[in-house]
């Protein structure tokens, strides 16, 4: 992606330069900063935390390869990383369609026990199931904008669409979710 973002200086630039120079502290800081976001993106896209961890590992392999030759000023690193992660998820979703296996496991929390916790987990699973049923582009738009909190411009850049097209994807996706999740709205 060679799209120059309008957001000015890349907030990851200084850290990425240190990663490229092999600074161990910077490498750890980059993992700490990006891993939870990348895992969340992959989990919500794939609906499977175990597969999401594999995707995150693959995504970071690409980061290590790319860091020394990163061309600053062309694309934001975070936008690029989201694009890479989504592409890795698409590969897995495609393989799933070609070789259907068992349903992805529901997310469980080992700390569960209390009824409230159980209810929260069930609600979470319902939202995840509704997200998974959305058309791919609508789901991705909602995940990038609502959960990953990317700006409109960055989310549109990851999806390779205009901000107007992003608005349309978000609106259709949210309308479908509202219909499917009515029981959860208080």
């Amino acid at each position, binding site marked *: 992606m060679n799209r120059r973002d309008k957001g000015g200086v890349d907030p990851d630039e200084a850290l990425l330069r240190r990663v490229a*120079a*092999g*600074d*161990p502290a910077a*490498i*750890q800081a980059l*993992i*700490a900063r990006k*891993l*939870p976001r990348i*895992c*969340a993106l992959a*989990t*919500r896209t794939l609906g499977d*935390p175990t597969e999401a*961890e594999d995707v*995150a*590992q693959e995504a*970071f*392999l690409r980061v*290590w390869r790319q*860091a*020394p030759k990163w061309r600053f000023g062309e694309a934001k690193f975070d936008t690029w990383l989201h694009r890479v992660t989504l592409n890795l998820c698409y590969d897995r979703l495609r393989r799933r369609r070609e070789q259907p296996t068992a349903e992805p496991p529901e*997310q469980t*929390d080992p700390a569960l026990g209390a009824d409230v916790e159980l209810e*929260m*987990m069930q*609600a*979470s699973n*319902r*939202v*995840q199931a509704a*997200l998974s049923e959305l058309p791919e582009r609508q789901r991705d738009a*909602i995940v990038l*904008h*609502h*959960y990953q*909190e990317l700006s*409109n411009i960055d989310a549109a850049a990851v999806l390779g669409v205009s*901000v107007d097209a992003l*608005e*349309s994807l*978000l*609106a259709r996706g*949210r*309308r479908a*979710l*509202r219909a499917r*999740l009515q029981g*959860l*709205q*208080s």
Partner: protein
Amino acid sequence: MSRPQMSLERFAALADAFGADMRRWPVAKRLAAQDLAQVSARARTCLAEADALDAVLDQSRVTAPSPELYQRILAQAPKPRMIRLRAAGATSARSRLLRWLAGLGAVGVLTCGAVAGAAVVAVAGPSHVDSDSLTGLYDQTNSLDAGGA
């Protein structure tokens, strides 16, 4: 200069798409949207509906990445030692290049010296030396030697 205005329909469409938090709306629309929300109860109803859906979406939880995953990723990261070795390799290559250039310089200096010396001889000596005069000089030298013997 008057601030841009927004229709309720446009406001509802933006809330539908981007949710209740107007900080997440396109920058160019925010001021007009805030103005409308202050004066229109229907606009605020649109925001409340969007907020309800946002709250439902926020019920989705994801587990934090495991420490094992963090360690696996860290283990795959480039090692500082490898980078130092690469840097050292680059330095020794640079040293070799400098030595080679220095050698080239020395040869150049010697070559220039030789050329300059020849030029001096050419300027100080006869402007033209043909093969006959060389033969005559050789003969003269030989006869002197013979006479001295």
